[in-house]
């Protein structure tokens, strides 16, 4: 219990909130890194996942690759990339992108694939193009699951982005590594609490978005009418 109160004492110390290495800077760095990583992971995984879900082809391969990628230790990957590209943010960002892809990818293709095949068939029957089917039928219907994947990926990344501090002067991980080595457990636990708080905030925001999208999908009349019903 002493550690907990010491951690809150550390968090309450105004000196920690100032300057270029203060908590607001570290929080911002952490959030920006997380944003870049999740963004890059989505650019890669959403098109692939949606295409796989739409065509019902290659889900075995994608599932296997995504499953295998989950087993890759991020710290090992980070060290490997660090040895290739040197210290800085590039190596951690790429290692974290690889961490984020499986969840986002699985969400994307599972969301699309789970749609009753009769629905895209009906859209096809009324003359919609494949692109329109994907954009206006499948993505809206699969959105709750797709966002679920993004949510899982974000949570993993925001927690693991502490590793950026392994080879860069960046993010909340700085408090964890420094606190551990300097035996400053108040700092270490304080840093961990900040990561937890950030993760919870992102989780609540994404869960709210997911719920709102789900309501739109399951009960379209309760919100604005979608194009599908025009």
């Amino acid at each position, binding site marked *: 219990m002493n550690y907990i109160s010491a951690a809150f004492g550390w968090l309450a110390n105004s000196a920690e909130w100032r300057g270029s290495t203060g908590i607001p800077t570290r929080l911002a760095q952490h959030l920006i890194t997380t944003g870049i990583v999740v963004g890059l992971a989505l650019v890669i995984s959403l098109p692939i996942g949606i295409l796989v879900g739409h065509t019902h082809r290659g889900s075995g391969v994608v599932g296997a690759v995504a499953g295998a990628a989950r087993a890759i230790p991020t710290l090992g990957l980070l*060290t490997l990339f660090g040895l290739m590209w040197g210290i800085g943010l590039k190596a951690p960002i790429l290692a974290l992108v690889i961490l984020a892809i499986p969840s986002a990818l699985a969400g994307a293709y599972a969301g699309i694939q789970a749609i009753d095949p009769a629905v895209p068939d009906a859209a096809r029957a009324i003359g919609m193009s494949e692109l329109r089917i994907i954009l206006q039928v499948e993505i809206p219907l699969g959105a709750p699951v797709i966002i679920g994947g993004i949510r899982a990926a974000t949570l993993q990344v925001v927690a693991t982005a502490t590793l950026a501090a392994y080879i860069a002067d960046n993010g909340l991980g700085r408090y964890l590594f420094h606190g551990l080595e300097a035996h400053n457990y108040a700092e270490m636990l304080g840093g961990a609490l900040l990561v937890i708080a950030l993760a919870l905030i992102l989780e609540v925001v994404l869960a709210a978005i997911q719920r709102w999208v789900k309501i739109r999908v399951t009960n379209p009349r309760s919100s604005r009418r979608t194009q599908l019903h025009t």
Partner: protein
Amino acid sequence: MFRRTMIMAAGLAVFATFSLAACSSNTPSSSGSGSDSKPTLVIGSQAYYSSDIIAEVYAQGLENAGYTVDRQFDIGQREVYLPEIQSGGIDVFPEYTGPLLQYWQPDATVTLDADVYSALQAAVPDGLRVLNEAPATDQDSYVVTQDFANKWGLTTIDDLSKVTDPMTMGANAEAQTRPNGPDGLLKTYGVSVGFTPIQDGGGPLTVKALQDNQIQLAIIYTSDPSIAADNLVTLTDDKGLFLSSHVVPLVSDKVDDTAAGILNKIDALLTPDALIAMNARSVNDQVPASTIAHDWLADNNLN
């Protein structure tokens, strides 16, 4: 089913045999082999590959002189093995002057070689003593690339003041607030540098950052084989910024004058380069400590 049982039984038997063998070798051998013969000396080492090598050198050096040696290597860190040494369970242990002094005197402020050694001699508890320290060190040090050293003519830490380009130090996060980090460098030598954390303890990522000129200064152990292998230069620490840490045997009263003489002779020959070369054979070529020790003793005519 029967076969599996057989295999399991065989496995258990083998396991039991090894456990028993381990037990018997663990029993501290009392010096019961006659009053004339030399006592069996128990030699320990830290859970650290370089400590194993030095312990093996001591062990084989003593064996070559007719002593019986009981090896108890890889015994964790000081908190674990020092009580064991103080209770008489271990007779010879390769130690490091500065950190050993700090274990017994946490508030010790001396850092320079001679001061640390004499303070250590005074701090050793009754029943134990340290023999002569070796020239070899195993301590934190500031390291630069050969190119960087040539460009600015650097041999000591003091020389860093000649560098007019901005410099960044790369080291584990703890260095940022510890006396051997940027703050200490500024206070002791008046040189100011930036800082970037690299959490691999002076490992390959740190060396690469040096070679890529992402950092100009790194904290790496003086006995690290990468210093020689990667063409790095250790800057001399004239003002004692780093705690001096020479290899030194910590021994019990069971170590007689002859044995002490042998260990002192080994230590006199154990230079920084010799230790780095032995460490390199272990790290780079995966040669076992016993072979490394045997070859080094043979090269120095101590066999």
